[in-house]
């Protein structure tokens, strides 16, 4: 363990994002940041604190509350040779920029016959759990993943939080990075020499032989906790962190399901017509005859997110539900255990 400790630093997810951003700003003068309150205020989640002093007004640009204009300006600046990183404070406000994201960023390469690429990186915080109610708690990762032309990544670990940014910047396509709000204060180990992280593939975060838990973002930790509890009952769960939702690395989860013969998909997003449905269907297409039990989903309950803590928690996937879904399917019980 000593060697591992020497090569890692214990910091928060927030600081890992910050390190990734600072590294990018130092490496490439074409990189600049813009977004609401990222400068003087230091970022809504304090990710960019101190950046204005370090990198100056030209590269750390506080924007007006004009999501469509500053996302569109990011697209234009990317077309003009810059490498903008646009911060949309939260995914909830990104709906005000959806036209630019969907009708411009995602379409331009194809619509121009490959003449123009949009090397734009958009970061946004997502998710629920902070009692900020229905307009500040969306999980729309699956929604955005519906759109051809975009790349959607969901860093759940510190190395991914720090390292996916460099890969996203090097990518000629528009990349949206979703950072779950619940992760910013999480402490973990950042590899000291962290480098560009792969943004094409899922990874197995915990190996197991009995069931595959497929998830992304903050739900990864609920799945890992559930896997520990299941292990106490002799059930070994494999936990897959999708990391990239578009492209979706189905090879990794189909191979896993082909080994474990069971799958539970855990997604904070709403159950209907969502990412979990897509993953489930890909398992049907790619591993149907490998299954020993119907695929299960543990998803967000289909309701605008309530304020009161007990209601909010009841609307979100919980460790107990994941455990129940797995034990139910291991016992051969019929019916779903999904929260939705």
């Amino acid at each position, binding site marked *: 363990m000593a060697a591992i400790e020497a090569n890692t630093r214990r910091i928060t997810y927030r600081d890992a994002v910050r390190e990734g951003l600072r590294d990018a700003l130092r490496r490439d003068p*074409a990189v*600049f940041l813009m977004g609401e309150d990222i400068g003087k205020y230091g970022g809504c989640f304090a990710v960019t604190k101190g950046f204005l002093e370090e990198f100056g007004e*030209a590269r750390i*640009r506080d*924007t*007006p509350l*004009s999501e*469509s*204009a*500053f*996302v*569109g*300006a*990011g*697209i*234009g*600046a*990317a*077309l*003009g*040779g*810059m490498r*903008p990183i646009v911060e949309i404070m939260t995914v909830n406000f990104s709906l005000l920029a959806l*036209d*630019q994201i969907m*009708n*411009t960023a995602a379409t*331009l*390469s*194809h*619509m*121009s*016959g*490959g*003449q*123009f*690429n949009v090397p734009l990186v958009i970061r946004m915080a997502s998710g629920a759990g902070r009692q900020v109610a229905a307009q500040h708690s969306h999980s729309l990762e699956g929604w955005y993943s519906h759109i*051809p*032309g975009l*790349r959607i990544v969901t860093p759940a670990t510190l190395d991914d939080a720090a390292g996916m940014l460099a890969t996203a910047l*090097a*990518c*000629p*396509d528009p990349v949206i990075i979703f950072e779950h709000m619940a992760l910013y204060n999480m402490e973990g180990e950042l590899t000291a020499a962290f480098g560009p992280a792969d943004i*094409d593939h899922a990874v197995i975060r915990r190996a197991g032989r009995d069931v595959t838990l497929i998830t992304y973002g903050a739900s990864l930790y609920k799945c890992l906790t559930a896997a520990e509890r299941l292990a106490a009952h002799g059930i070994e769960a494999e936990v897959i962190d999708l990391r990239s939702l*578009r*492209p*979706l690395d189905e090879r990794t989860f189909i191979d896993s399901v082909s080994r474990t013969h069971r799958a539970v998909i855990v997604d904070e997003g709403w159950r209907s017509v969502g990412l979990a449905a897509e993953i489930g269907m890909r398992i049907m297409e790619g591993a149907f005859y490998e299954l020993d039990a119907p695929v299960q989903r543990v998803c967000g309950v289909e309701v605008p997110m309530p304020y009161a803590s007990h209601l909010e928690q009841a609307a979100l996937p919980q460790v107990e539900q994941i455990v129940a879904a797995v034990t139910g399917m291991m016992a051969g019980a019929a019916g779903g255990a999904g929260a939705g």
Partner: protein
Amino acid sequence: MSAQPAGQHAVTREHGLHLLREMLRIRCFEDRCAELYGAGKIRGFLHLYNGQEAVAVGVMQSLRSTDAIAGTYREHGHAIARGIAPRRLMAELFGKETGCCRGRGGSMHIFDATTRFYGGSAIVGGCLPLAVGLALAEKLQGRDGIAVCFFGEGAAAEGEFHESMNLAALWSLPVLFVCENNLYAMGTALARSQAATDLAARAANYRMRAQAVDGMDVLAVEAAARELVAFVRTERAPAFLEARTYRLRAHSMYDPQLYRSKAEVREWEERGPLVTFARRMEAQGLMSEDDLTALREEANAEVDDAVRFAEQSSFEPVADLQRFTYAEVAHGGD
């Protein structure tokens, strides 16, 4: 902020013929498009530029090849005036592989990297933030290029208009906003949809240099644009030009034009940018009837050639359908 009186600006024979040629090339191209639409060769939405030629032609005169341009779905005229070959344009409308976007964009989405032509946006107001960003890139990289954004007066009701005006002024970005006020947003007149109808005044409220010009007078547009382009280029600050113009044809090929009278259209036809300018050139002895005939034939021949080229070109293989959804230089996408 009032429009300048018409016919004030002097012009040489050579330059006058150049401006007229450019406007005729566009008019001829557009008229042919209408025919080809009727013949089923061009499909989808088709928005023609007839009547507004003086705006694109007038503004383009003072732009450099290093400047960036963003426009709307009524952008054939800007594309031609910018120097995109009519062959590649017509092939695009035919959906052919030799089209400037390989047949993926069509009439509303013309792009051309070599002339820095960034569309071709069919979402009203969508091109404004893009132009702001292109201007930001010029500024951050210390280049002397500017961005020019063409849009209609309908866009002035969109949130993106206000957001973009504010951002461009706040950050002092080198962008020229050219608002082509043709009086109708599809079929809704300006006064029926916007409370304040002086658009140049609206832009001026964003602490931006703004002026209105008679958009039917190519020399007036050229002079106003030259001044504003020089201002934007040297001051690295935005400016706004409202060109008061008129769309002589229907909004698109599906428009029965119930919202305006034939008399109104006839009246504006009399004020059309080509007829008035040709008349002025002739009256000033700068052009003969033969000159005009020669220009017309030249423009027709160019369009004939473009149509032939488009007809003879092939369609992109269906196997290529998903190409360019993601860049081909790295990463694939799923």
